[in-house]
């Protein structure tokens, strides 16, 4: 990859794309410096501190529809506007990994609080993240920890934390699920306050063998046992490689897993190694999910969708933040070529293009016939469109329709 392609790649995979002027500046700095800049501790902490939500708008109320809509739109607006995208890109990634969803959590504020956790801890120690998410109020509600007592442990979280969130199938037994469920009993969400609390009389403190570790009896020892399992580094490195690199080949994942383990499971170090690996070579194409695609489209065109087209469009596309379809999160890859997503992408693209200010470089390029300029203004890694897209764009009406069509091209949709 040349520097422009590499920087474009970094920002389309690990950020939300760059507006044309920002892309030029980043190319001048070079990909290595760009990775360092994204991961710089002060930039990360400043980005975390820039919390986009206002608690006054988010009462701890069940099924407050307006709060839910506002919470989602606020996050999308922030992803579009931020100059430090990695924190929210990681929060988005963890949101699709440690899944909770509004349909069951029902309190938008608690979903926001969980996203805040992913923003603040998403580039830190995986052990800290896992510990925090295990007793996060939204997670306790979503996977039934809040109802799990020593007399009747609920296995929902205990199963998914092993199967989906950490080690993966084939690394644990049904007895591990039962032991984990018992050890995690006693936590519940105080309704009306939206906070988790530990109630000792609801807890089963019996030491059990869990993942081959004796004496596991509470959250700390469960997390320690998972962190000590040899499958963890590979499982998380594989997940991140799939998301960022578009490949989970063992030859690619193994060194990343080794780096992750050697760093004592520092997510920032895993991310750094993953991005460096991608710039060096083994990246495969990925199909952008509707949310990253939309945010990139808004950033490069200067548009910001408001109103019903935004959430209706994302719902038709199959991806609304805070409402993942099930505990495994959203589908990926070619799933985003399903007909509903294709249609919604066109609808959203038309709205984005119509909302682009006239002085936006991409909008400007769409007025003229210079497709290479349009490709560059959209932050594409390649300097031009392929044959089919070039012909279609040349034939489209200059301006809004051409810009909308460009956002639907395979070149823009595939990162």
């Amino acid at each position, binding site marked *: 990859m040349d520097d422009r392609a590499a920087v474009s790649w970094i920002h389309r995979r690990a950020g939300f794309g760059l507006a044309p002027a920002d892309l030029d500046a980043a190319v001048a700095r070079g990909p290595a410096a760009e990775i360092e800049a994204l991961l710089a501790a002060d930039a990360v902490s400043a980005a975390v501190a820039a919390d986009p939500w206002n608690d006054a708008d988010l009462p701890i109320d069940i099924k407050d529809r307006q709060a839910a809509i506002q919470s989602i739109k606020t996050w999308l607006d922030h992803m579009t506007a931020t100059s430090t995208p990695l924190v929210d890109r990681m929060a988005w990634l963890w949101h699709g990994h440690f899944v909770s969803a509004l*349909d069951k959590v029902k309190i938008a504020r608690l979903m926001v609080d969980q996203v805040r956790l992913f923003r603040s801890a998403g580039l830190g120690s995986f052990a800290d993240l896992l510990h925090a998410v295990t007793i996060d109020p939204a997670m306790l509600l979503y996977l039934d920890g809040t109802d799990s007592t020593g007399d009747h442990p609920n296995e929902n979280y205990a199963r998914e934390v092993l199967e989906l969130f950490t080690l993966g199938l084939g690394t644990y037994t049904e007895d591990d699920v039962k032991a984990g469920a018992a050890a995690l009993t006693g936590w519940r969400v105080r309704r009306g306050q939206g906070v988790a609390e530990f109630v000792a009389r609801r807890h089963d403190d019996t030491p059990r063998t869990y993942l081959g570790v004796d004496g596991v009896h509470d959250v700390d020892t469960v997390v320690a046992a998972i962190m000590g399992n040899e499958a963890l580094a590979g499982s998380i490195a594989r997940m991140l490689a799939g998301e960022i690199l578009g490949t989970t080949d063992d030859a690619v994942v193994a060194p990343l897993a080794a780096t992750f383990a050697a760093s004592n499971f520092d997510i920032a170090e895993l991310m750094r190694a993953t991005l460096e690996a991608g710039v060096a070579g083994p990246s495969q194409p990925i199909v952008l999910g509707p949310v990253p695609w939309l945010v990139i489209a808004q950033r490069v065109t200067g548009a910001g969708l408001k109103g019903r087209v935004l959430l209706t469009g994302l719902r038709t596309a199959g991806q609304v933040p805070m409402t993942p379809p099930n505990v495994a999160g959203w589908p990926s890859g070619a799933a985003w070529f399903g007909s509903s997503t294709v249609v919604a992408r*066109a609808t959203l693209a038309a709205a984005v293009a119509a909302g682009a200010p006239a002085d936006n470089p991409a909008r400007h390029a769409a007025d003229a016939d210079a497709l290479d300029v349009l490709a560059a203004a959209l932050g594409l890694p390649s300097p031009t469109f392929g044959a089919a897209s070039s012909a279609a764009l040349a034939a489209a009406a200059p301006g809004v329709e051409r810009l909308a069509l460009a956002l639907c091209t395979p070149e823009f949709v595939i990162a």
Partner: protein
Amino acid sequence: MFSRRQFIHIGAGAAVTAALAACSSKTGSSTADVTAGTSEPSTGAPSSGASPASSSAPTSTAVTAPPVSSAPDTTTVSSVISPSTNGRTLVIVQLNGGNDALNTLVPADGRYRDARPTLAIPEADLVALTGVADWSLHPKLAPLATYWDAGTAAFLPGIGFGDPDHSHFVSLDRWWRADDLSASTGWLGRSVGADSTAPLYATALGSGAPLLRSDAFQAAVVIQPDSFAFPVGLSEDALRGLTTPVSADQLHALAQRSMLDAIGAVDAFAGLLDPAADAGDDVSYREGGLDLIQGLDLAARLVTSNVGARIVVVSVGGFDTHSNQLATHDALLDDLAKGIDAFMQKVAAAGASDKTLLVTTSEFGRRVGENASGGFDHGAGGLSMMFGGAVIGGIHSEIDLGDQLDGDVRPTLDPRTMYTACLDWLGLDPVVALGQRYDDVTLLTA
């Protein structure tokens, strides 16, 4: 070998070759992940009411002897059959999350009540099934008793694969791929030939449906019917321009073909839409956006319109009732019964009863015993229901609560038995989809 994550995560009914699958962003791991469906119904309305006896009461209970020559006439043609020849439509209603089978079709067994001190359905509320002593229906399923009495409803308790797994995703995957983990395609997708070109030939409503995955065609996916149309500001002609010439890059070529398929599906779908409906600027508190009644209404329109729909999958969620089971399950089954009843009535009004088959699936049943959250954890043997003119009414399998599998209903009927019946009926070859026939029980007339 096609890993679970590769298979499941791509899902969504997209046509993808194994090679393309490797390009997807989440591949290759042994951990599961899913693109299953979603959306959960709501509302409630009571009524129990038993079914009156009637002359056509089906015989009840139990796996009867495997019929010897049960191969219906449409099978053995060849591996790729022109799929639209027999004009029949299969509608699969997938109840995601693991429907609680024992509170849906309730066994008259003391062990059921013993295991469920607070969550068993009170005997007085049960809906009797005419001619059957050992099974009854959940009160919300009263509308379905009509079909039982007419001999057009069948129940398959204990359905599930052997050596069951409590994972949603392992279980769904086994249902989707008919337990063939070497397959890159879903059991229905791989049954259908490349000549199934009607854009809505196979349509997934509510979410993608991995069981429709095929190397040969791409199922239409309609998540939100009210907004399944291209925008005014971006013409179909302009979008169609993106699709030729076909790119040499496989993933780009797939994007191009997907665009063509979407254009075809939108055009075919346009006639089915209700212009009065309005999607609204809304966030669903249900899983997903499509509810059961809406999904089945749309399925009925697909079946009764001349758009060439032959396979429809309606995916709805909410059945993972670890907690608060009674109220949640009540509402779910209420929607299910009303949705199926309305569907069957519309199909009958269009004269299509004999050409339409509706079956329900769910990845597993739930535990026999209740948990302390007022719900049930993941179990094993489940329940499928079948409705339609071709259905041989009855209860075609049995369970034994005295012989549980570690607290679960032991699976007694292989889902591939139902698949074989459905494929035969559609005029497709079960051997292509399943490797062999599973016809130990006859479920449908030819």
